[in-house]
C-alpha cells in the first residue's frame, strides 16, 4: 500500500517537473523571438597598413567646384564617390574602417590589358572566351596565337586624415576579391557626419591581377603597366570624380 503511495508521489513530482521545464522553455523561446537585437556591429577594418598596390591615384575631391562651397562631411565625399562609381557600373558597395576615415572597395572586374573593362565578361573572375558582340580581327588573332590571360582589377578608395603608407607586401587575388563581401553595406552615421577637413585626402589604390592561364593562380601585377589615373580614366571614373 505504502509503495503504491510513494510511486504515485514520484510520478506526480516527475510530471510536475516536466511541465515546469516545458513552460520555462516556452517562455524563454517567446522572449527570444520578440527580443530586438541591440548590439552594434563594428565596421570591419581594412588590412592596415594597406597591401602594396599596383598603381596609386590621388583625388582632390574637396577642392572640386560643386563641393568646395559647402561645409563638407565624409558623407558628402562618399556620395561623390558613389555617384561616380554607379555611373561607371560599380553598383556594389563595401565599406571598411581605416584609421582616420574609411575605405570603399569595388568588386573585382575583368579588364583588357590596356585597362578598359572587358564589358562582355566584366564581372566574371575567370578567363573567358571572346564574345561575338565584341569581335575584332586583331583581338581574334591575338587570342588565337598568344596564351590566354585574364586581367582583373579592384579599386580601393581611401578617405582619411591619416598618412597612408602601404605595407610593401602584395595581396592575393582570392583575398582581395573577398573584400567586396566582407565590408559593411554603408557608412555609419557618425562617420558620415564627420567633417571633411583640410587634413583629409582621397587616395585610390588599384590592385591589378594577371592570371597566366586557365586554372592557374592569378598574381598581382606590381607595378601596373598603366598609372592609377589611367586606370580611373579607362574605367570611366576620372571625369566624374574630378568634375
Amino acid at each position, binding site marked *: 500500500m505504502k509503495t503504491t503511495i510513494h510511486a504515485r508521489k514520484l510520478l506526480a513530482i516527475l510530471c510536475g517537473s516536466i511541465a515546469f521545464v516545458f513552460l520555462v522553455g516556452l517562455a524563454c523561446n517567446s522572449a527570444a523571438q520578440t527580443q530586438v537585437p541591440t548590439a552594434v556591429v563594428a565596421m570591419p577594418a581594412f588590412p592596415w597598413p594597406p597591401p602594396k598596390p599596383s598603381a596609386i591615384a590621388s583625388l582632390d575631391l574637396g577642392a572640386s567646384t560643386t563641393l568646395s562651397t559647402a561645409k563638407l562631411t565624409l558623407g558628402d565625399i562618399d556620395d561623390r564617390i558613389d555617384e561616380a562609381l554607379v555611373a561607371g557600373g560599380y553598383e556594389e558597395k563595401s565599406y571598411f574602417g581605416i584609421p582616420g576615415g574609411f575605405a570603399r572597395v569595388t568588386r573585382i572586374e575583368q579588364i583588357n590589358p590596356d585597362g578598359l573593362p572587358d564589358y562582355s565578361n566584366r564581372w566574371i573572375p575567370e578567363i573567358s*572566351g571572346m564574345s561575338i558582340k565584341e569581335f575584332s580581327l586583331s583581338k581574334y588573332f591575338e587570342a*588565337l596565337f598568344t596564351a*590566354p590571360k585574364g586581367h582583373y582589377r579592384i579599386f580601393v578608395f581611401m578617405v582619411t586624415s591619416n598618412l597612408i603608407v602601404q605595407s610593401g607586401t602584395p595581396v592575393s587575388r582570392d583575398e582581395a576579391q573577398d573584400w567586396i563581401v566582407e565590408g559593411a553595406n554603408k557608412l555609419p552615421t557618425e562617420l558620415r557626419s564627420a567633417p571633411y577637413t583640410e587634413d583629409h585626402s582621397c587616395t585610390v589604390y588599384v590592385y591589378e591581377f594577371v592570371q597566366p*592561364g*586557365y586554372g592557374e593562380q592569378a598574381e598581382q601585377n606590381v607595378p601596373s603597366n598603366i598609372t592609377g589615373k589611367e586606370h580611373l580614366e579607362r574605367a570611366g571614373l576620372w571625369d566624374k570624380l574630378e568634375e
Partner: protein
Amino acid sequence: MSIAMFKCQTRLMAVWVVGCIILLLVAWLQIVFGHYGENGRDVIEWLLSSIIPILSLVTGVWGNNALKKVKNAEKVSKGIYRAVLAVSVFYLIFLGLIFAIQPMVARPPLEVVKDSSLIVAPLQGVMCAFIGIFFTQNKK
C-alpha cells in the same frame, strides 16, 4: 562520266598538301607564341597523327603514278572523285575549326584539341574508307 585518275590524284594531293601546310603553320605559330604554354608538343603530336597517315597515302600513291610512263590511261568515276575531294576538304576544314574556335571558348586550348579527338578519330576512319574506294577504282 570518268576522269583521268592521275589528274584526280594530283588535285587531291594538292588539297592535302596545302591544307596540311596551313594547319602545321597555325599550330607552329601558336606554339612559338606560347598559346599552349608548355604543352605544344602534345598539340603537334595530335595534329601529326590526324594528318600524316592520309597525307602519306595520298602523296605516296601520287608519287608512284608520277613515275609511270603512261599516266592518263587509268580512269575513275567523276562522282567518286568529287565525293573524296569533298570529304577531304571537310576533314581539313574541321581540323582547322578546332584551332579557329579556341579564342571563342572559355576552356584551355589543349583541352579543346584533346576532346576533339572523339570526333576526329571516326572522321579519319570515314576519310580512309573514301580514299580506299577512290584508289581501288580503275576504269581502263
